């Protein structure tokens, strides 16, 4: 009962309610603008709320966090530029849907599914936090390696008919992700003696180029051929569609919660795994995946918002950040004299439930602000190319620059844009490269970490895949996916049938 009373504090306290609302509203716009990250916004907020009451500061930060994760979907769907890495998977079906003249429905669906995923994630946070924390702690280097491999399985869904070239591009992405100083030994890799490359290539810079600038070049190349879809369609998704997608959304939300709970693994991987899950399990999608399937929007959007609840679990129960934003929030707790870690829940249990209540409230606010803002955003698709293309280019420039306040990043971004354009005119998708850049560092570090943990003995390393329950489950899923991708099950059914 006491738990419930703390949970509803943000709903009943007008000051907290207002701060959550303000944070959510601001977060949506921060998330929608490429280059402005939720981490940047929460860090800035930390300095602004330094002298505030602890709960006031946390309420606003939770609002920005929630709104920011959701906001990235808007530019992803309307401009093919993910506002944040967590929205990369939303472009796969969101942008084709907008091009079909159904931008309003896509944004509406993303809003409903983000809210659903977020609420499921918060419920997991409230009721199963200790269980999820145990699960996260049970993850070894080997399991992170398997998780990265699972993410790479998505390649089959993104290859667009040219699997060989898509695989090449994905591996190229992995190598690009490894540019910079090796995190284990500090050895420079692919830096060619330049300082600019030593810090690595920022994923946002690559995404802005590969999706944003390459889209500008594609539109320039097809200007005489393409018809501008100046309609945006309906706004609210039909109830029947929402109900039909609900079982999928529940599954992808659970994926999001557990991925979010893993330290160092964020919403981008949750969304990619969610999309992959939808691609593999939905036998009859509303439309083919990659051509505006509703399932391709619902899955990543629910997974990345559910990730918030998951990321808060290790932060609140163990004092370990689940992602960059929760690392900043830990800073906020320390500034306000609290000691993040297992004692936090013992000494200040009310804080845990107020945070969970704020996230829950922020998701409900999303429903209001999300739909109110769609009308403004969806008009973007009706802007004539003469104005839109320079606007996207400017967004790419500013977004890339704002990451490190460095013009070199802008040049990199345009370089990625040209690469993306050359790939796309040769019918090779760019998404596998982004997949590689995201998963590359995780794959490399976890593989080597697992091998070091096995005393560099290949036998012990391989035995670990079946001796640990988590590894066994992940290995089995990967094996089944590979077999399914190779068509083994279909062949077996054919053999059995006749």
């Amino acid at each position, binding site marked *: 009962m006491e738990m419930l009373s703390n949970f509803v504090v943000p709903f009943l306290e007008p000051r907290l309610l207002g701060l959550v609302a303000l944070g959510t509203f601001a977060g949506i716009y921060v998330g929608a603008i490429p280059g402005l990250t939720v981490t940047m916004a929460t860090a*800035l907020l930390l300095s602004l709320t330094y002298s505030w009451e602890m709960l006031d500061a946390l309420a606003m930060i939770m609002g920005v966090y929630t709104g920011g994760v959701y906001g990235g979907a808007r530019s992803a769907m309307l401009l093919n530029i993910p506002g944040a890495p967590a929205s990369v998977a939303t472009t796969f079906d969101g942008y084709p849907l907008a091009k079909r003249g159904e931008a309003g429905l896509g944004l509406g669906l993303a809003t409903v599914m983000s809210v659903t995923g977020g609420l499921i994630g918060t419920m997991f946070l409230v009721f199963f936090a200790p269980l999820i924390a145990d699960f996260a702690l049970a993850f070894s280097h080997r399991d992170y390696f398997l998780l990265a491999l699972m993410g790479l399985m998505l390649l089959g869904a993104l290859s667009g008919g040219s699997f060989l070239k898509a695989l090449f591009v994905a591996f190229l992405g992995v190598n690009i992700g490894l540019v910079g100083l090796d995190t284990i030994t500090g050895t420079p890799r692919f830096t060619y003696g330049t300082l600019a490359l030593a810090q690595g290539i920022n994923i946002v810079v690559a995404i802005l180029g590969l999706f944003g600038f390459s889209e500008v070049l594609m539109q320039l190349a097809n200007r005489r051929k393409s018809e501008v879809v100046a309609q945006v369609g309906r706004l609210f998704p039909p109830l029947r569609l929402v109900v039909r997608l609900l079982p999928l959304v529940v599954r992808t939300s659970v994926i999001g919660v557990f991925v979010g709970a893993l330290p160092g693994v964020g919403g981008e991987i949750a969304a990619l795994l969610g999309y992959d899950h939808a691609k593999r399990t939905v036998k009859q999608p509303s439309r083919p995946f990659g051509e505006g399937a509703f399932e391709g929007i619902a899955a990543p959007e629910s997974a990345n918002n559910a990730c918030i609840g998951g990321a808060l679990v290790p932060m609140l129960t163990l004092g370990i950040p689940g992602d960059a934003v929760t690392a900043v929030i830990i800073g906020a707790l320390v500034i306000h004299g609290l000691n993040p870690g297992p004692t936090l829940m013992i000494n200040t249990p009310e804080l845990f439930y107020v945070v969970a209540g704020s996230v829950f409230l922020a998701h409900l606010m999303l429903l209001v602000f999300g739909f109110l803002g769609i009308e403004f955003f969806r008009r973007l698709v009706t802007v004539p190319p003469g104005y839109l293309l320079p606007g996207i280019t400017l967004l790419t420039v500013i977004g890339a620059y704002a990451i490190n306040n460095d*013009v070199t990043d802008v040049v990199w971004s345009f370089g990625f844009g040209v690469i993306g354009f050359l790939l796309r005119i040769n019918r090779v998708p760019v998404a596998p490269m982004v997949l590689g850049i995201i998963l590359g560092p995780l794959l490399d570090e976890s593989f080597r970490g697992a091998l070091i943990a096995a005393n560099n003995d290949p036998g012990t390393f391989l035995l670990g895949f079946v001796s640990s329950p988590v590894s066994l489950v992940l290995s089995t899923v990967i094996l089944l996916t590979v077999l399914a991708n190779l068509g083994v099950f279909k062949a077996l059914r054919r053999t059995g049938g006749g």
Partner: protein
Amino acid sequence: MILRRVSLSLLFVAISVFLLLSSLAIDTKGAAFAVSPRFVPFGLSIVMMGLALRALFQDFRSPDGPAGLDGPAWRSILGFGAVVAGYLALMGTVNFHLLTFGFLMAAFFYLGVRSLPRMALVAASLVASEYLIFEYAFHVRFP
């Protein structure tokens, strides 16, 4: 025709050779090969070379390739690319907001917009938004 068909896979072969040579230059810091920072990039470049050669073989045998772009499409891209290159080249030498305004006006004009007051209004609005959101609210220091 054959060259156009195989150009991308040829580029892939060149990239994989370059990456292979680059990965060989990575210092292993005396660590065992499998746990050294060289292992993953080296292994990947070997696999990439195999994939690139296989793609080259397939493209060589395939009767049709991507349609490619015609002259006007390339001209349109190169012209816009020149405007963007000029914008990047002048960054740091001219006031960023003025430069951005100039870039937007030039880009609008290049893409066929001819209403000068409207162009100026849209460009000014975008520059003002960029200033208020990035520089004023988020303290981004532009060059």
